């Protein structure tokens, strides 16, 4: 059973880690989680992003957060990637598979996956 003792151990591990290394949260990934996003499948997209960012060891550099309606309901699920000094990238009609690819190629590799962006969708 996932006991409180195990949770305690996680706490101890986290507390002993050197907090906030340089470049923390350098890249912000934002998922639209209003009704339209949720109905269109944002929940598995969000969960995949959280998991893959962690698996790729990017959890210090990349933060994954949720927002309300981004304003283009027909294009949901929408994922925005925001990085200082760069133009915001908006991925539309996302799926867990596409999200995996974005983590691998864009967040890890630094290369925008153009075909999943608003521009690419047109």
């Amino acid at each position: 059973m996932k006991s409180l003792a195990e949770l305690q151990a996680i706490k101890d591990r986290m507390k002993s880690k050197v907090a906030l290394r340089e470049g923390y949260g350098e890249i912000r990934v934002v998922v639209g989680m209003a009704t339209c996003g949720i109905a269109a499948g944002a929940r598995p997209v969000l969960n995949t992003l959280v998991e893959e960012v962690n698996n790729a060891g990017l959890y210090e550099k990349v933060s994954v957060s949720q927002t309300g309606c981004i304003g283009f309901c027909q294009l949901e699920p929408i994922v925005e990637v925001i990085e200082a000094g760069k133009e915001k990238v908006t991925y539309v009609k996302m799926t867990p598979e596409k999200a995996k690819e974005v983590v691998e190629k864009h967040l890890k590799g630094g290369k925008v996956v153009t075909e999943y962006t608003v521009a690419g969708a047109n």
Partner: protein
Amino acid sequence: MKEISLNILDIAENSVKAKATLVEITVTETAYTLTLTVKDDGTGMTKDVLLSVTNPFYTTRTTRKVGMGIPLLQFAAEQTGGNIKIESKHFSEYPDEHGTTVTALFYKNHIDFTPLGDVISSVTTLIQGHPETDFLYKHSFSDKTVMLDTREIRAVLEGVPLDTFEVLIWIRDNLREQYDENQ
């Protein structure tokens, strides 16, 4: 919505938006019914908002003119022969006991009943997105209860944020194991 768990996620988001500090999500099943309650201690709704809230053209949002969350829950419940009920106390009138309770009743044997679905995923998604808000999740069915209270988790974590990946995995696995034990 494909699953009731997605309605749960969406309705609980309303509570977070209303600045709730505690959101209580209760799912109670009998042989024939499923009752969902989402109760919060947020700002509450004014009488005007409360009256118009089941109308899909009412919303206080500004990016879009149509509020869909509550109408979708109402649709999901009513298409099984059930209903929804909303009680709300606005802070301007009830400074000490404000908040909103949304209750939905579903008839499980109706052909249009949508399954509960991946409710664990909805709970972890809420905590990931709102690590400062407390959630109490309680699902009772055939004499059994699955429960998660982030206030207890928060007390153990002593300042470690609830959206830490390992913590989210612990929460997910804890719920999975509770469901497995109750099979």
